């Protein structure tokens, strides 16, 4: 939501929020859900810090770091798409949305390779509590990435500026969750 279309002067705090109010309700709800999950993860870690550290060594930090770059770049393209649509550059906005979706697919491909590698090592959801949280949180996030790709596709078809603003906001929410999830699951040893 780099810019918002011209609208009436704000009268209350809620009117100041850019974009759709319901999308902000969703963003806050998702932050609460993932926030609780990450706090629970670190809470359970207190019972077995060395086991969690050992389990974390099986993760691919480089792949996850690459995925962070992919997702923030995808968010950048979605934000640019809105700005382009607002100045009437409709075709270029659609190309940006398409590129953002493609990077979403790249994110899922890297995530899929990571899951396949874990499966090949015989690591599953019941291997250790660390992996239960790992699969639950990253899997739930990946489901949001899939939903986000669909949403971006829909707003690329029905591409008025308001639709793109709402769709891009959903995508930025996915981005926001990842920048909190990635360091806690992959980096805090």
């Amino acid at each position, binding site marked *: 939501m780099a*810019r918002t279309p011209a609208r009436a002067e704000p009268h209350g705090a809620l009117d100041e929020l850019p974009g759709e109010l319901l999308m902000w309700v969703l963003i806050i709800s998702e932050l609460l859900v993932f926030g609780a999950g990450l706090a629970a993860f670190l809470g359970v870690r207190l019972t077995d810090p060395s086991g969690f550290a050992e389990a974390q060594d099986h993760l691919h*930090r480089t792949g996850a*770091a690459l995925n962070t770059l992919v997702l*923030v770049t995808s*968010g950048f393209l979605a934000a640019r798409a809105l700005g382009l649509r607002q100045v009437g550059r409709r075709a270029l906005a659609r190309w940006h949305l398409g590129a953002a979706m493609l990077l979403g697919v790249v994110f899922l491909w890297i995530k899929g390779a990571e899951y396949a590698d874990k499966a090949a090592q015989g690591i599953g959801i019941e291997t250790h509590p660390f992996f239960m949280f790992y699969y639950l949180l990253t899997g739930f996030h990946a489901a949001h990435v899939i939903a986000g790709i669909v949403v971006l596709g829909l707003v690329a078809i029905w591409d008025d500026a308001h639709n793109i603003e709402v769709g891009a906001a959903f995508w930025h929410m996915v981005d926001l969750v990842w920048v909190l999830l*990635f360091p806690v699951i992959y980096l805090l*040893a």
Partner: protein
Amino acid sequence: MNPLTRAWLALLLLSGGSTVIAALVSQGVAPATVGVGILLFSWMKARVILSRYLGLWQAPSWRRGFNLVLGIYCLLLLGLYLIPAVTT
């Protein structure tokens, strides 16, 4: 350079920085210091996304509120992360 592009570059730098900081544990840097750095960078990334990608730069009071709550949340995560180091 427009603010959106600056935000994107900042996110790339902060993301790379987080990974580099995490690698410092193997160089002998205290995990507590590394944890502080990683969560500080996460908070900064979240601030950039909220402000520039989600447009909260247009709503300064909401931006302050989100930044404050996320900052407190990152402190909670840091506390949970540091408890084992403090108690052993």
